[in-house]
């Protein structure tokens, strides 16, 4: 096709997209000159461009619309809904014609005259129409007469408009192919850089080369970012078309809908925008058709006549969430349930066991549609199941939540881009594979006894958090031989599919994680159905990206019916699991085998010896920037340079128990025999025929627990006298008593005030006694008779007073 023509078509399309939102906005507020100007500019440009080509019908149409709009601009005519509709119809026809021109087809059937007549019609009667309108009050003129007076002045807006056009042309159109070429060029450069970096490292330090190389690295990563962004498009391009869609739909259905778009500046891979266009449109159709009620029904239920449809896009990390919410009648749980039972999706028994949330999400099941009658808006045989399928194909997901009578929110989650994803590299056999990070729920060592790894025939099951889930051996899935890693040494990657199903994939070990640039695979490789693409690791080695959804599907792990049937069973299975006594088995430094209840164990920490301080009577250790008590250390000096610690918590305080070796998480089946003679041991029990001491958590925390150095807000507060003595000598004492020092005059009754007696007396006479408790200090050891003061170096008395004040404050807090 002629380049010039292609340019014309592309430009017209772009303007069409941009202006459709404007038109609706203009209709809502016809006095809005800026909108009117935009639309006028569009039809004007189309008309002008038609001059270059031989499109007489296009020219006639745009000319008619331009005339009508020009009249509005000049104030000769007031835009009413009939005229807006007529202009919209013309713009639609222009779009159709442009499509036809591009396809090289004949222009669509003739009907232009009717459209032109429609847009011209009111003008012929406009002379008396305005007066009629005022009398009947049915169609009041929308322009205030005053605006006519201002009209002349508006012509000065013309040069400004030209500037806008000039600004708009600061973008250029590029073939995506060229962008891809630049992108792969940059990827090549990154690999070349990595190679060079490797060689430089081998060659040793060379300051003259290292500097420029660092700079090259920085520039390259900048360029890479920019290139990645080149493929991005603001989601605005998608949202701009929505007001128009909503307007047409609501008009068709006799509903009043206001649309509110938010987050148009979120950027998305342009291919992804195309992928979500249909799902989004479908959801909006649904919301207007099924969600939002007709105005009378809305008024009857005490809502505003106009329904609100909000579309918001948010970026969080590597995903974009798009929320489509309406304030309509909400989803009908009973109807959905009845339909689901009727179509055999769930059995009545399953239905009664399902939560509302689960039930609502049945609407995404294949073959589900609640609309009783098929209207021309929704229910065209394309159901929400197709929406979900389309989203899942690109690694997205969708869910719904709804409050009866309040409205419905659909949330779509989609990845930012198809070509760069966060991924996890795993190793099985001698080979590495990548898994998209989005699927990864958790990574667990199979050795943990709590996982209860069992083989059922050929299948494998693990118990994870009380749920029994299927486990696939990646080596088996891929048919890799000679990789018989013992079951206990496997690492399990728990994968959550978009459908919500969870399964475990057993791999030999986790290699790394990071951003992966995904390249498509040749069809012959895709045929296996196991891979979604390939990617190059930093060392330039290609690895295959696993197609998690497909692998799960091949092993029947996504069949929706099954997932639901399993659900109640899992809940039952979880119940006895909770009653089981689980414990962490370890060997302490005295060589004793001990166990501690698993609920108490927060984490297993490994800490360098330098983090341990044994200078005080009780050893302390620094973990995560907190100083915590440490127990279980051997008497003598520590050997090695690292120490394994169990981090125990009773909910408030934390302490660490040093251990020689952490063995495993176990379930205690044998009876517990109390050991009254050792207060630190709750009971003895047998594990594999060996005696094990179960640590008495109550006693341990009672003896060694310290409330954590809580956030300043949680500690009692205290004000000090204004003096150097107070700041340098008194303050440390007060702080070590657990107080936070705050500035004076806070007026807070919870703040303890320490004051010199003479200051207090002065305040008392002025009637400005602090609101909270007051500790009064005196300078002389000998107290005057009957004085409620404390000598300022009487440490014991001071601490006693602070402790008393603190107890009072806590008692006060608990009373509230």
């Amino acid at each position, binding site marked *: 096709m002629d380049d010039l023509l292609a340019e014309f078509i592309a430009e017209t399309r772009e303007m069409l997209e941009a202006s459709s939102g404007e038109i609706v906005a203009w209709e809502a507020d016809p006095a809005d000159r800026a909108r009117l100007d935009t639309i006028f500019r569009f039809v004007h440009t189309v008309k002008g461009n038609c001059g270059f080509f031989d499109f007489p019908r296009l020219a006639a149409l745009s000319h008619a619309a331009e005339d009508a709009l020009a009249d509005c601009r000049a104030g000769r005519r007031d835009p009413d809904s009939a005229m807006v509709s007529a202009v919209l119809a013309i713009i639609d026809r222009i779009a159709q014609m442009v499509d036809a021109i591009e396809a090289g087809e004949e222009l669509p059937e003739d009907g232009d005259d009717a459209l032109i007549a429609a847009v011209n019609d009111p003008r012929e009667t406009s002379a008396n129409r305005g007066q009629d309108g005022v009398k009947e009050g049915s169609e009041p003129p929308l322009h205030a007469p005053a605006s006519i007076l201002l009209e002349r002045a508006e012509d000065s807006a013309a040069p400004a408009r030209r500037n806008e056009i000039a600004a708009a042309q600061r973008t250029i159109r590029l073939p995506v192919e060229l962008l891809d070429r630049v992108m792969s060029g940059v990827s090549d450069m990154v690999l070349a850089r990595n190679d060079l970096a490797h060689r430089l490292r081998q060659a040793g330090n060379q300051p003259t080369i290292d500097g420029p190389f660092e700079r090259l690295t920085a520039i390259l990563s900048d360029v890479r970012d920019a290139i990645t962004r080149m493929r991005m498009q603001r989601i605005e391009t998608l949202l701009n078309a929505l007001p128009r869609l909503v307007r047409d739909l609501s008009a068709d259905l006799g509903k009043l809908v206001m649309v509110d778009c938010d987050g148009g500046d979120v950027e998305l891979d342009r291919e992804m925008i195309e992928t979500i266009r249909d799902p989004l449109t479908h959801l909006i159709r649904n919301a207007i058709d099924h969600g939002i009620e007709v105005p009378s029904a809305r008024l009857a239920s005490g809502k505003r006549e106009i329904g609100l449809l909000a579309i918001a896009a948010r970026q969080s990390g590597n995903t974009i969430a798009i929320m489509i919410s309406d304030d309509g009648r909400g989803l009908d749980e009973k109807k959905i349930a009845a339909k689901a039972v009727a179509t055999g999706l769930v059995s009545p028994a399953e239905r009664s066991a399902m939560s509302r949330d689960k039930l609502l999400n049945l609407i995404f099941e294949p073959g589900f549609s609640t609309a009783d009658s098929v209207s021309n808006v929704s229910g065209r045989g394309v159901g929400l199941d197709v929406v979900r399928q389309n989203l899942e194909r690109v690694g997205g997901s969708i869910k719904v939540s709804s409050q009866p009578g309040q409205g419905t929110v659909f949330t779509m989650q989609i990845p930012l881009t198809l070509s760069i994803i966060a991924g996890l590299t795993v190793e099985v056999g001698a080979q590495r594979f990548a898994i998209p990070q989005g699927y990864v729920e958790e990574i667990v060592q199979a050795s943990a006894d709590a996982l209860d790894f069992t083989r059922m025939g050929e299948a494998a099951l693990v118990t994870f958090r009380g749920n029994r889930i299927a486990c696939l051996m990646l080596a088996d899935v891929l048919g890799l031989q000679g990789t018989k890693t013992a079951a206990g040494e496997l690492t399990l990657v728990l994968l959550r599919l978009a459908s919500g199903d969870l399964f475990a994939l057993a791999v030999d070990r986790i290699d790394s994680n990071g951003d992966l640039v995904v390249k498509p695979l040749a069809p*012959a490789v895709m045929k*296996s159905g196991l891979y979604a693409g390939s990617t190059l690791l930093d060392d330039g080695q*290609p690895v295959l990206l696993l197609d998690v959804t497909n692998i799960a599907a091949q092993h029947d792990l996504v069949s929706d019916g099954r997932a639901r049937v399993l659900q109640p069973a899992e809940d039952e299975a979880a119940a006895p699991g909770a009653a089981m006594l689980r414990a962490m088995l370890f060997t302490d430094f005295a060589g004793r085998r001990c166990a501690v209840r698993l609920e108490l164990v927060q984490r297993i920490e490994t800490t360098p010896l330098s983090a341990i301080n044994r200078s005080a009577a009780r050893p302390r250790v620094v973990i995560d920037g907190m100083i915590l008590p440490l127990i279980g250390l051997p008497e003598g000096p520590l050997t090695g340079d690292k120490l394994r610690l169990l981090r125990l918590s009773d909910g408030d305080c934390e302490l660490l128990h040093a251990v020689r070796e952490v063995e495993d998480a176990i379930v205690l089946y044998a009876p517990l025999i109390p050991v009254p003679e050792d207060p630190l041991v709750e009971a003895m029990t047998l594990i594999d025929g060996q005696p094990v001491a179960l640590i008495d958590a109550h006693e341990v925390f009672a003896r060694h627990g310290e409330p954590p150095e809580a956030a300043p807000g949680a500690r009692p507060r205290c004000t000090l006298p204004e003096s150097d003595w107070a700041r340098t000598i008194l303050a440390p004492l007060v702080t070590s008593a657990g107080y936070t020092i705050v500035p004076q005059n806070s007026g807070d009754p919870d703040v303890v005030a320490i004051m010199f007696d003479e200051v207090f007396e002065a305040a008392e006479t002025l009637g400005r006694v602090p609101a909270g408790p007051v500790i009064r200090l005196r300078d002389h050891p000998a107290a005057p008779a009957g004085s409620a003061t404390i000598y300022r170096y009487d440490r014991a008395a001071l601490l006693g007073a602070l402790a008393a004040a603190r107890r009072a404050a806590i008692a006060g807090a608990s009373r509230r």
Partner: protein
Amino acid sequence: MNQLLVIVQIAGRRCALSAHDVKSVIELGAITPVPRAADFIAGIAALRSQSLTVIDCRRAIGFDAAPWPTDDRAAVIGNGGHSYALMVDGIEDITTATGEPGQVPGGFGPEWSRIAAGMIETATGPALLIDLPALIAGPDTPRGEIEVAA
């Protein structure tokens, strides 16, 4: 007439690839095997930032690769937007065709016929001109289209 050809040895036979299709000849580095893929796919390899699908031509035709030596160089070709590296017995030379591809009476045998575009005379003797799309499709592809062409 003066078509440039890359002469390779596949399963002990002299074959010709149109030099127009061959983007480059590379040293094959590490090949990442693709588990559960058809056995003529030797794996994937990297050419700069691109990934190549490595095709073992012997297996792609329907023979066993074992009896033949394997050149550590491979011919890189493009097809349908993807790049492939062809693993062959040996890459010999570049030469010019001295005639149009033709058929031989009795055909080339079932395996060869599927992937052959015909026999071509070159400056260094006759060679079997390979039909690349048919080769890449692998031995299990229906050979309808190729037979039509023959």
